[in-house]
């Protein structure tokens, strides 16, 4: 048997550059400069179609975030717009994550299942997710089930494929160790396969999260929707309320940023230092 080098890097090995490599202030100052340019350009133009960002922000605040402190400053409009969207997205993401991880691990652990399913998976992943929405409209009619189904069916593939790859790449020596220690199948899953696959699972979850946001908005743009951020967007557009359109875009950007930051924080906790995660993250 060949002798394999120890895969553990020495503790002193230089890690990937951390976010702190660029000072906090400098990172935010780039954004500030960009917004300032936008503000100046928009004011110079004076076009109703391109309002300056400060006006958009003020409009968004009046529209959604000027409520009483007891309700986290959310206005009734915000409760009626943001929460349904977030609710559908959370449900879709959770379902996609659970289904994707479960099926992915199962497929990844069986060589035969992997060989059989891989072409189907690659095909399913290659279909642009929004193209599937019309199919779900037919199957579920308009409304929340259709919207959640669209989100799940688009977001499940990256998690599934990455979980399968992660489970498949479990170190064969560690599987031998598990056999020698006589771990039961659930123990092997919990102590070996899941932690081994975790970095890949999170890579999949990050992709899925952004797909969830896209599909959330897209499924709300269709006729038949009556609430949500996407609905607000089209509704304001038909009323030529450009300020609200821009506010919705700003809100979507902020939401995407916050959700991704949250997921990264969870990942950092679960795939902490000392695990193999560092190299793939």
């Amino acid at each position, binding site marked *: *048997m*060949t*002798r*394999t*080098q*120890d*895969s*553990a*890097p020495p*503790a002193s090995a230089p890690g990937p550059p951390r976010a702190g490599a660029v000072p906090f202030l400098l990172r935010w100052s780039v954004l500030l400069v960009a917004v300032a340019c936008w503000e100046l350009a928009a004011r110079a133009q004076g076009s109703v179609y391109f309002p300056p960002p400060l006006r958009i922000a003020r409009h968004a605040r009046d529209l959604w975030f000027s409520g009483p402190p007891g309700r986290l400053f959310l206005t009734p409009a915000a409760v009626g717009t943001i929460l349904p969207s977030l609710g559908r997205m959370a449900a879709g993401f959770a379902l996609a994550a659970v289904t994707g991880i479960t099926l992915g691990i199962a497929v990844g652990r069986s060589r035969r299942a992997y060989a059989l399913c891989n072409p189907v998976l690659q095909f399913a992943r290659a279909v642009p997710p929004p193209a599937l929405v019309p199919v779900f409209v037919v199957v579920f009619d308009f409304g929340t089930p259709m919207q959640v189904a669209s989100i799940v069916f688009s977001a499940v593939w990256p998690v599934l494929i990455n979980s399968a790859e992660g489970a498949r790449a479990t*170190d064969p*020596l*560690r599987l*031998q*160790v598990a*056999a*020698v*220690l*006589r*771990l*039961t199948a659930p*123990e092997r899953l919990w*102590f*070996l396969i899941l*932690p081994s696959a975790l970095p890949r699972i999170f890579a999949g979850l990050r992709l899925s999260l952004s797909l969830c946001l896209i599909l959330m908005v897209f499924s709300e743009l269709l006729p038949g929707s009556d609430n949500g951020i996407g609905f607000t967007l089209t509704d304001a557009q038909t009323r030529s309320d450009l300020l609200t359109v821009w506010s919705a875009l700003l809100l979507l950007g902020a939401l995407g940023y916050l959700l991704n930051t949250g997921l990264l924080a969870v990942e950092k906790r679960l795939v902490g230092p*000392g*695990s*193999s995660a560092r190299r793939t993250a």
Partner: protein
Amino acid sequence: MLRLDSVGRHFGDTRVLDGISLTVPDGQLLSVVGPSGCGKSTLLRTIAGLLPVQEGTVTIDGTAVNGVPEQLAVVFQEYGRSLLPWLTVRDNVALPLRRRGLTRAARRAEAEAILERVGLHGAARRRPRELSGGMQQRVAIARALVCRPALLLMDEPFGSLDAGTREDLEDLLLEVHRTNDTTIVFVTHDIDESVYVGDRVVVLSPGPGSRVVHDLPVDLPRERDQLSTRSLPEFVKLRTEVGRAVRGAPLEGPV
């Protein structure tokens, strides 16, 4: 008692092991030595039930090996891969105790006791990766010993450690063997090491189709010391004999 009866194995067209017969009495520390690629690891994995027995039989106390036997532990060379990096040192060691139905506190207490025995009392809550290679291999040895195995298999366990660490661990192994009376099969490619730790040395011929070419008892005193034992005339004679067998040179003749 571990018994191998004309055990053979091939991978595809390549013959790896050819009619290996061995009897290892209880409590013996058997060194298996041979050139790189001679099938030592394959032999060990066959005994461990990690590879199916293709030809011949492997029996432990009269029971044929079919799958990983009870009361068996293995220490692999690749300590970094064999330990689970996401568990603390203590939880790595406590992992095989789960099937004994102990509470978590009892498992941890037992793991800490065995860690103390291998000289790692301070490291229980650290992660394997924070430890040096020698310490990680001590953790792997602790994990192997925690279930008090009747048969311990070691696959070049000290092969990737530096000389000083390797000597410390050889002495740890001898100490463990003296106090536990575990049967140990110790695979190595290091001739000196095979004589120093072994009660008996078996030499395998270079592959393909590796067989036992030499089998000699090590009648050195049980108490061994890195400096004085290695300078005994008997030690020098034994290592020369093993060395000749490994190189395939004629066993008789001037030293």
